[in-house]
C-alpha cells in the first residue's frame, strides 16, 4: 500500500475525461487499496475519484457512513465505471474538495439518483441514493468527467430565490 499524491487546482489533469475500466485484475485492486488509504489520510473526505490522484480511469470510492449527523447511505462503496441513469429533484448544499483546498461553496445537485456501476470484480450493481450520498456520488462522477464543484457554484443570492430555482428546475425535468 502507498499514499498517492492528490492533484490540486489548477492541475490540468483534473479537467480530463477519464477512461472506462476494462481490466478487472490484481493491479486494479492494488490501486483501489492505495486510493482508499489516500482518502483516509486526508481531511474527512466522504469520497475520492481516481483522476484526483492522476489516474485517468472511472473509479470512485464513496463512504457516507461516518458523517457527523447520520445520513441514509450504502456504507463503503467501490464504484467502477459508475453511471447515473436517473435523476430527480434539486437541492442546494455546501461542498469542498480534496483537490481545491481552503474553499467551500454552494452547489445544486439532484436530490435522488439511480446509479449503475461495477465492483472491482466487474460485477454489475445498481444503487438508489438520496440526499447527501447522492450529492457525494455526483461530486465524484463529475471528477470522472473533468468537472470540479467550483464549475457548478451558485451565487449566494441563489439561496434567497431557492424556491424559484426549484420550480424552474423541476419543470425542465418534467418537460
Amino acid at each position, binding site marked *: 500500500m502507498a499514499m498517492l499524491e492528490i492533484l490540486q487546482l489548477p492541475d490540468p489533469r483534473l479537467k480530463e475525461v477519464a477512461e472506462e475500466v476494462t481490466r478487472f485484475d490484481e493491479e486494479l485492486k492494488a490501486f483501489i487499496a492505495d486510493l482508499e488509504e489516500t482518502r483516509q489520510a*486526508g*481531511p*474527512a*473526505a*466522504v*469520497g*475520492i*475519484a481516481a483522476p484526483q490522484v492522476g489516474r485517468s480511469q472511472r473509479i470512485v470510492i464513496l463512504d457516507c457512513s461516518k*458523517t*457527523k*449527523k447520520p*445520513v441514509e447511505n450504502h456504507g463503503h462503496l467501490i464504484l467502477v465505471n459508475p453511471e447515473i441513469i436517473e435523476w430527480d429533484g434539486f437541492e442546494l*448544499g*455546501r*461542498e*469542498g*474538495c*480534496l483537490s481545491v483546498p*481552503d*474553499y*467551500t461553496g454552494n452547489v445544486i445537485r439532484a436530490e435522488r439518483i439511480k446509479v449503475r456501476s461495477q465492483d472491482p470484480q466487474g460485477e454489475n450493481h445498481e444503487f438508489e441514493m438520496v440526499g*447527501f450520498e447522492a*450529492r*457525494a456520488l455526483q*461530486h*465524484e462522477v463529475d471528477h470522472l468527467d473533468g468537472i470540479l464543484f467550483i464549475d457548478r457554484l451558485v451565487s*449566494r*443570492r441563489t*439561496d*434567497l430565490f431557492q424556491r424559484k430555482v426549484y420550480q424552474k428546475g423541476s419543470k425542465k425535468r418534467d418537460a
Partner: protein
Amino acid sequence: MNWQMLTLVGEDQPGIVARVTDALYRGGCTLGETSMIRLGGNFTIMMMVDGGQSEQALASMIAPVADQLQLKFHLDPMHGGLHRHRVPNYQVRVNGADRAGIVAKVTGALAECGFNILELASDVVGDSAKPVYIMTIQGYAEAEIERLEAALKPLAAEEIDVHVSAIETLIG
C-alpha cells in the same frame, strides 16, 4: 502582506468593476477576498487590496476612477489576511411580513447561543403594499441545533418564519 480594506459605493452602472480593478491592476495591486453586490440600485464593493503602497498612494490611484464613476470610497488598513475561512455548520432562513426589528430579533437570539454569522443576505420582495422580508444566514456555532431552535421559537408568535438547518459540508 499589508492588506487595506477598500470600500466603494455609488449608483450602479455597467463597467464599475472593470474600471476599478483595472486602475488597481495598473497600480500594481493584488486583490484578496472581495464582496461586490447591487443593493437598492447602488453598487457596493468591499475589497481586500495590497500593493505595498501607503494609504495615500492607494487613494490617489483610485480617486480619478471613483470621480469619473461618481463612487464614494474609503480605505482602512486592516489586520488579518487570506486563508482564514471558517466553514459554516448552520444555515438559518427567515421570511415574514417586513417589520421593524426582524433582523435584530433573529440575530439577537442567535448571538445569545454564541452563533457567529459568517454571511448574511437579505432582501425585501413582494410589492410595496405587502412587502415580504427574506433573509438567509450562514454561520458557525458550537451549540446543538435544539438550543438554536429553542432560542428562535418565540419569534414564531410574531409570525416570523424561521428555520434552522445543520450544514454538513461534503468533502470529496
